[in-house]
């Protein structure tokens, strides 16, 4: 996405009519209210294609948490729910500023993460656009609820600023917690940098709320490097936002207490789980993963593909996600300077996993290096399951516990694999 965003800086709306993308203007101020409209009330609702792909952008040098804040500002979020723990990440603190500025209708501080994630489920069932963020041990505490969201077909946004989940604790990057989300059933995007942490939540909201998808979306980034550090982020103006959630056009009925029949509210069979047929339960689970597959169409449209390929013909390919992509980009540059034939595949979407795309992009590769910021090597395992001739895969290098990954480490691994 980051490369495309640079190109989009100069982009103009496709239609000659400068207002062609506007879906609705802010409601007119009442006569008796003379003060100027602020916050969400001053924003125009625009077509998602325009906001995500076409709107002219300006570059700012901000932290990842600030980039997430700017994304949420334009995402037409109804409610943010969190148990914010600054300084691990100030993302939800930044979102709190948005509430104060009038960009979010409500901000609910949960008592802890089980309560937070339960409240997210409730808000989503009620049909509103809901956001939360967590990391590390907080994610683990809330995961009982998080894994119930896909089955409930509950669109929502979970920002994950990855750190370490196990003792000793850390606030440095280590994305082992993504491995706990792999089999939850929701969509999981893994951002490389501050730019992705701006773009991916906007895309995630739109994809997850498509009727044929209707799933929660997690946008993960590697903490500290992305959340605390500054980077260049291209963003459109503040006065536009996504269309609101259209909860009456989703895969399950929302919980509408105003319209009969309330009895078909979306969670009814779930709460009767002792009584539903085994076959329904099985078909239900199939449908969750089928919905993920349907999300690919929309991820391809707005994410520019589930993967990004650099030097596609190279014999040695690095496959990475998250902050490891940035390190790998530099490793590829250094390798190219030395005359080595090295390419890179950035995996943007972990769920749905780009099985088909990886197989096509790696068909020619003789060596596949998978650098990761975690001990267990979950991405290497995913790659091995997805492709054939798995003896090509070198599951490393890996750093963890908050260590950085020197590019030399990647280059040495490539050299050692010859």
């Amino acid at each position, binding site marked *: 996405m980051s490369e495309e965003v640079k190109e989009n800086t100069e982009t103009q709306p496709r239609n000659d009519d400068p207002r062609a993308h506007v879906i609705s203007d802010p409601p007119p101020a009442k006569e008796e209210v003379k003060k100027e409209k602020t916050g969400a009330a001053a924003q125009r609702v625009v077509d998602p294609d325009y906001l995500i792909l076409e709107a002219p952008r300006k570059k700012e040098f901000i932290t990842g948490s600030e980039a997430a804040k700017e994304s949420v500002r334009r995402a037409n979020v109804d409610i943010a729910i969190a148990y914010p723990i600054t300084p691990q990440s100030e993302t939800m603190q930044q979102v709190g500023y948005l509430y104060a500025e009038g960009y979010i209708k409500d901000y609910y501080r949960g008592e802890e993460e089980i309560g937070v994630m339960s409240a997210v489920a409730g808000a989503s069932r009620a049909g509103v656009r809901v956001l939360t963020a967590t990391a590390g041990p907080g994610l683990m505490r809330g995961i009982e609820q998080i894994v119930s969201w896909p089955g409930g077909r509950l669109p929502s946004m979970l920002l994950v600023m990855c750190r370490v989940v196990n003792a000793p604790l850390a606030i440095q990057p280590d994305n082992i917690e993504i491995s706990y989300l792999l089999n939850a059933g929701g969509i999981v995007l893994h951002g490389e940098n501050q730019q992705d942490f701006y773009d991916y939540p906007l895309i995630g909201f739109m994809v997850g709320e498509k009727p044929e998808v209707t799933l929660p979306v997690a946008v993960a980034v590697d903490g500290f490097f992305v959340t605390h550090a500054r980077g260049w982020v291209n963003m459109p103006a503040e006065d536009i936002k996504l269309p609101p959630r259209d909860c009456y056009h989703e*895969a399950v009925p929302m919980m509408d207490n105003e319209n*009969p*029949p309330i009895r*078909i509210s979306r969670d009814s*069979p779930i709460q009767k789980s002792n009584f539903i047929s085994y076959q329904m339960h099985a078909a239900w689970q199939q449908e969750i993963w*089928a919905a993920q597959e349907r999300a690919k169409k929309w991820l391809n449209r707005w994410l520019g593909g589930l993967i990004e390929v650099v030097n596609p013909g190279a014999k040695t390919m690095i496959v990475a996600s998250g902050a490891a992509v940035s390190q790998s980009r530099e490793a590829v540059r250094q390798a190219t300077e030395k005359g080595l034939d090295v390419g890179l595949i950035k995996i943007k979407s972990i769920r749905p996993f780009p099985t088909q795309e990886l197989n096509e992009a790696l068909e020619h590769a003789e060596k596949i290096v998978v650098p990761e910021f975690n001990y267990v090597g979950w991405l290497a395992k995913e790659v091995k399951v997805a492709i054939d001739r798995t003896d090509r895969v070198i599951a490393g290098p890996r750093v963890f516990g908050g260590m950085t990954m020197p590019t030399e480490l990647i280059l040495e691994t490539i050299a050692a694999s010859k």
Partner: protein
Amino acid sequence: MGNEKKTQYRVVTGPEGILPPAATLMGISLPEEGEGLVEGEIVSEAEALEKAAIALLTRKNPTLFPGPLVLWGWNDHTDEKAKYFFDVANELPGIRIIPMPDYRPIYPKIDPEAVINPCHPNLTILHNKIEACVFIGVHCHYASITLKIIRAGTNCYTIALCAEAGHEDAMASVPNFDIEKLVRFRETIVTVKKNGIKPLYEGKGIVPTGWSQIASLKGETPVKPEEELVEAGVSGAFLNELESGLDDNAE
């Protein structure tokens, strides 16, 4: 997961087995606006409507299953859509309407002549010997579940007229099914009845089960019946308009 290549998998009438795969995960894609899906293949909307009409006019005990989105008077649009739904029903001889009013399990026992329920839709299909059915106004999650269970355990030809993106697990599906498309579906049914339906295998029966029965009576080995046994709009088929449809129950 993750197979976008051209797939050999086809979504045909069952019984397919205890747990058929989700068609999406076998590489079946949803149709775009103006298209339809027939047995897993993208076709024109007109062709999908015609295939659906043929199934409803030739298979035993055709039944419409309206879901909450047309059963309940949520809004004016729902009321209007229900009216056009009945216009379609009126063109289908011998049609039955069995509602899916709710998605919750119905215990201790459903009345399969009164309702269909996504927890065990096969019970309603099997009890009523339904070989062709239409789902309309059912929320997509429950429709997909229902379609899978029916494909698993019955020989029913499923048709999903979906107001959203369509359904890969139905034998025939058209997306964004609004009132205009309901009107077009009614017109298609009228046209198919008017033009007649020609058996592709003369003398061997029109409906697949009929062919199977005739083969059995002749002492021949029954071939697995396929939907391609019939096609619409062929002159010289039925000489007269199908005023009363095919009454398969009049045995």
